[in-house]
């Protein structure tokens, strides 16, 4: 390849393929070092249907408990975003039967008060901090629950923008709160009820409805191929 001949800056190719021993749901396997947890499952011949989604760290389908060698601490990760290492032990978590409240976000009269009807367990947080420690997205979940209860919806919506809804904060809660669902409600309420309406957007919608662009459309859509190409070229 031309690349090999002319490339003066490249370093030589070195392929490593060191194997490490890991434990998947309590069973030992050898897999190449550094592959992701989800790839380790495929490598060991396991079919994955539940437990994989976007494979990009956004969907929360592959929330996993893991522990590394000689570390007593059990941690959480997203299986598509975590590299395996020697002595690592992990299990992908099945979905947890959390209760999601049902609501019509637009017709809420007093969203900050409604929180206590929809999620009456929310104010029962006992500050154990397990939810925060369980969050693979490093959100201060406990703080978020308290802010929700105290009505600081804006902060909650900002803190939980990283939330992938994996739900790992829920099984650890001793007060049976589902913090991610509480935060989702709070964020939607913040967007629908406590955020300023963008004036410019309404103006644009009205302009379109009133046919403000009618003449311009007529001109553009009436052009032949060449005229249109020339016209596009003038748009900078």
């Amino acid at each position, binding site marked *: 390849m031309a690349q090999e001949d002319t490339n003066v*800056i*490249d370093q030589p190719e070195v392929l490593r393929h060191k194997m490490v021993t890991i434990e998947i749901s309590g069973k030992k396997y050898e897999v190449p070092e550094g592959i992701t947890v989800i790839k380790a499952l495929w490598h060991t011949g396991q079919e994955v249907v539940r437990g994989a989604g976007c494979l990009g760290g*956004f969907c929360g389908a592959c929330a996993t408990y893991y522990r590394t060698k000689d570390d007593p601490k059990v941690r959480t990760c997203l299986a598509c975003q*975590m*590299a395996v290492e020697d002595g690592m032990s992990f299990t992908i978590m099945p979905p947890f039967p959390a209760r999601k409240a049902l609501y019509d976000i637009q017709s809420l009269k007093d969203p900050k008060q409604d929180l206590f009807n929809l999620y009456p367990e929310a104010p029962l947080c006992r500050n154990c901090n397990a939810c925060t420690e369980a969050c693979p997205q490093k959100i201060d979940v406990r703080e978020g629950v308290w802010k929700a209860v105290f009505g600081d919806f804006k902060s909650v919506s900002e803190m939980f923008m990283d939330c992938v809804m994996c739900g790992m904060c829920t099984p650890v809660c001793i007060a049976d709160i589902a913090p991610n669902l509480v935060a989702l409600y709070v*964020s939607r309420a913040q967007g629908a009820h406590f955020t300023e309406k963008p004036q410019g957007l309404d103006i644009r919608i009205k302009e379109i409805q009133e046919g403000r662009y009618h003449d311009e459309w007529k001109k553009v859509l009436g052009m032949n191929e060449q005229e249109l190409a020339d016209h*596009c070229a003038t748009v900078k």
Partner: protein
Amino acid sequence: MDIHALQQIVHQTRDARRKQTIPKFSPADRDQLIHKYHPDYRATAYRPIRFGPNANDKTVVELAALLEGDSSIPENLDLTPQYTTDVLVVGGGGAGCAAALHAHASGARVILATKLRLGDSNSVMAQGGMQISVAPEDSPVTHFLDTLKGGHMQNDHELLKVMVEEGPSIAKWLIELGVLFDRQADGNLHVKKGGGSSKPRLLTCSDYTGLEIMRVLKDEVLNQKIQLLEFCAAVELLSDDNGQCSGAIFKDLDNQRHVIVAAKSVILATGGIGRLHIQGFPTSNHYGATGDGLCLSYRMGAQLDHIDTFQYHPSGAVYPEQLIGALVTEGIRSEGGHLVNAKGERFVNELDTRDVVSSSIIRECEEGRGIRTMSGRVGVWLDTPLLDAEHGPGTVEKHFPAMMMQFERFGIDISKDPVLIYPTLHYQNGGVKIDANSETNVKNLFVAGEASGGLHGRNRLMGNSLLDLMVFGKRSGLTAAARAVSMQQGKLTLNHLQRFRAEAKKHGSSSGVISPMILPAYTRKEPERTVTT
């Protein structure tokens, strides 16, 4: 040399590069570059489809095999339906959720079926934003012209006009549902400039735009109690005596049983094809992006459009190994991030269209100005620390928290070190041909979102996909729901499948594969040695 040593040139040349402006290519140079380096022009990767609605049209070999593939369904299958509904939506991403919500809101009975969970899709990963012309200096017409230019003038004008004009009302709908778009100080929507666009037009939720929209839409689907069939993969459509669509057959992936659904209309919102790994490319796509909707509609007689063109996103991660193919958002380039070769030089206007930028990266690497990783992959630098240098410390962390975290997990601080990138298979530009209501040439069969074709021409502009999903999801949902009021449920037959099989036989039988693929075959088949010590 390790990756850190190779990075030094990016730091050393930063100040000099900041003074440079790189002009965009002239139309002639741009065409020449694309023809020489863009994967769409590698003739050996393509072959004609042998039969069906697009017989003799060329597409990539991976897709041709699936389109000619056989169904898993025997013709004597008992077609007694387990479910009967007005509107059957297949797919739980952005287009599917939008279709289901709008159909439900107009009073139709709706079932949403998806082969993974509700929301598992590419939509959830969209980081760059959503193009909607809301800024005073912008207009739907300008949005139209930018998109047309980006699509090499091949876009369907009618579809495109519909999309740009309905954009602002979509933004309003999402805001009312509680989507938190970034705002200016005066409360108006903040807009960013995207590659190939002449005006700032990207609405964003930091770099979580798709995730934020999908969190809200998923929640709304649940709140509206729309019936869900999760982990149910569509494996065949059903047709009535007139060849019109009348339902679908699913395989329940939990128990392998068939599920028959009778529906007055079917909306396929099944997404793209990244997991086919066309031409061996890594992909930014989700686990289920296997082009199922294309195969299902093709067997039913639906025409495909622009099925020979795919989008290779310029910036897929090349390092670390775990992130290969994962997307590095275009937002970095929108905010001024440079692309830098191994010599420390810029080589393209970073805000040119995706096909141009991808082609130029491939050119740099093929001509030996790429950077090679320890595992043998090649790429070029994306100068992320430049953003902090340009707009002040903390900029990268504030504007790109998702990406910061993604790399932080592997010990890389992208606000201090540049990122190595190479094009990754990102989007199917074409798809099933639709009209302005998102319907195919097969009556009562709708296709919405990435699975459809025509809107984006031969190259989709950044930020137009999220809008496409919302607009055509909505239109398909509303049309299907309105029609349900006055129509009878059609008979359930496999006549179309008989026809397809007969035609396949005439052309020397099918390609030998069963389609749709449902999930990529990543599981290693040979037994793995269990450690005994």
